[in-house]
């Protein structure tokens, strides 16, 4: 079954041990997601990327689950939506 295409804007935050891993490459290749990087800041021990993801809804969901399991933090672009 083909699920509908969606677009999502997220911010990925990488802990030190993942900085050198080809995370974004695998996201594109293994999950068939199209990415468009808008802004990024990568330092020696920490990094983040703001990007747009395009793909089938199910693929995006799987890709994001995989990112979280791998240890990448996935947030909406606006970070703290729930504010007290």
């Amino acid at each position, binding site marked *: 079954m083909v699920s509908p295409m969606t677009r999502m*804007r997220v911010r990925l935050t990488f802990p030190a041990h993942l900085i050198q891993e080809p995370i974004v490459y695998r996201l594109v290749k293994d999950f068939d997601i199209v990415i468009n990087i*808008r*802004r990024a800041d990568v330092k020696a021990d920490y990094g983040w990327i703001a990007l747009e993801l395009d793909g089938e809804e199910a693929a995006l969901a799987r890709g994001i689950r995989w990112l979280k399991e791998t240890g990448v933090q996935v947030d*909406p672009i606006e970070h703290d939506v729930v504010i007290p």
Partner: protein
Amino acid sequence: MEKLNGLRCRECGRRYPAAPVHVCEFCFGPVEVDYRYDALRGVVTRESIAAGPKSMWRYKDLLPIEGDVAVGHHVGFTPLVRAHNLADELGCREVWIKNDSVCHPSWSFKDRVVSVAVTKAREFGFDTVACASTGNLANSVAAHAAEGRLKSYIFIPADLEQGKVLATLVYNPTLVAVHGTYDEVNRLCSEIADKYRWAFVNVNFRPYYSEGSKTYGYEIVEQLGWKAPGHIVVPCAGGSLITKIWKAIKELGQLGLVDGPIATRMHAAQALGCGPIVTMIKKDTDVLVPVKPSTIAKSLAIGNPADGYYAYRTTKESGGFGEHATDEEIIEGMLLLARTEGIFTETAGGVTVAATKKLIETGVIPRDESVVICVTGNGLKTPDALVDRLEAHVKIKPSLSAFDQALADLKSQTAQEGR
């Protein structure tokens, strides 16, 4: 007077017309309202401000509102109290409390931001406002939506305390309890904001909303007789308030309304159990490492603050610093303020008082310089924090002899404790 240029990206500087958008389409950076200060200079004067209402709307020319104020006509212009007793206790010369625990109508500084956002929502023709919140913001959005006859959707995590839920429900919004973690509520709300044509005050209306916080800063300067204080200690959650107070002071300076030099140092106050901004400041790094909140200061419990970076920049640019407060210190802070000044603040105020005490003790705030402590919420909203700590001192039968006895007991007890 044309006072607005529209919106401008804080990262890449791209300009956009004033619209309900919050991120730059190009770089996904946050956008901010851009004013024509050249047009405002000489038009916004001390006299023009003084002629305005005794509310935050006396600064309407410096807010992103173009039409009439729609809701919250009485928000702001809260007392700035010279706190002599607290100053004695802290061992410093000049301490002030900016007291938004009595901000109308929902008892926190959130009324300042929400009244701007809801007015702007009406200006843009929205009929529904929304927010995702765990407390003060929910109360304020629901109240202002009721006043403005707008529909409102308030999203909260389902496991929220009943007290906070009640102070929202009373205004008759649609309250949506989401079964999930904060993280999941976050994700959901940013998707909802994308999909529905609603004014999410802290998502697509964030650029307008956050400008309301500037009025807290304007008032401090005006109430000090158009002087900027030496230090301001600000409780931080998302990091917007501290950034906007600083912006307010700089704007007044730019408009030529401040006497003397502007040498205010902005200090951030956070709980130890959720202090990502203060951690940045102490480590002197612009890298924000998100945390999982664990503190009684729930109103400040944002582990991944949207304006964390800008809050850090604010302290750095102004030469300020930051302090963490433990849960115990937060309660001590609340009790200290109540005992010395008769002001009952919520946990966020406890954080600020506790942090101020540490900043003074460590010499960051010199004892002979003026300091303003930002009290931003009311204690009656968070009684949970104190219930286990306080109880009636004297319990007696309804007879005079019982009271005489109790009083004698109390006196001897006090004498023994050497108080």
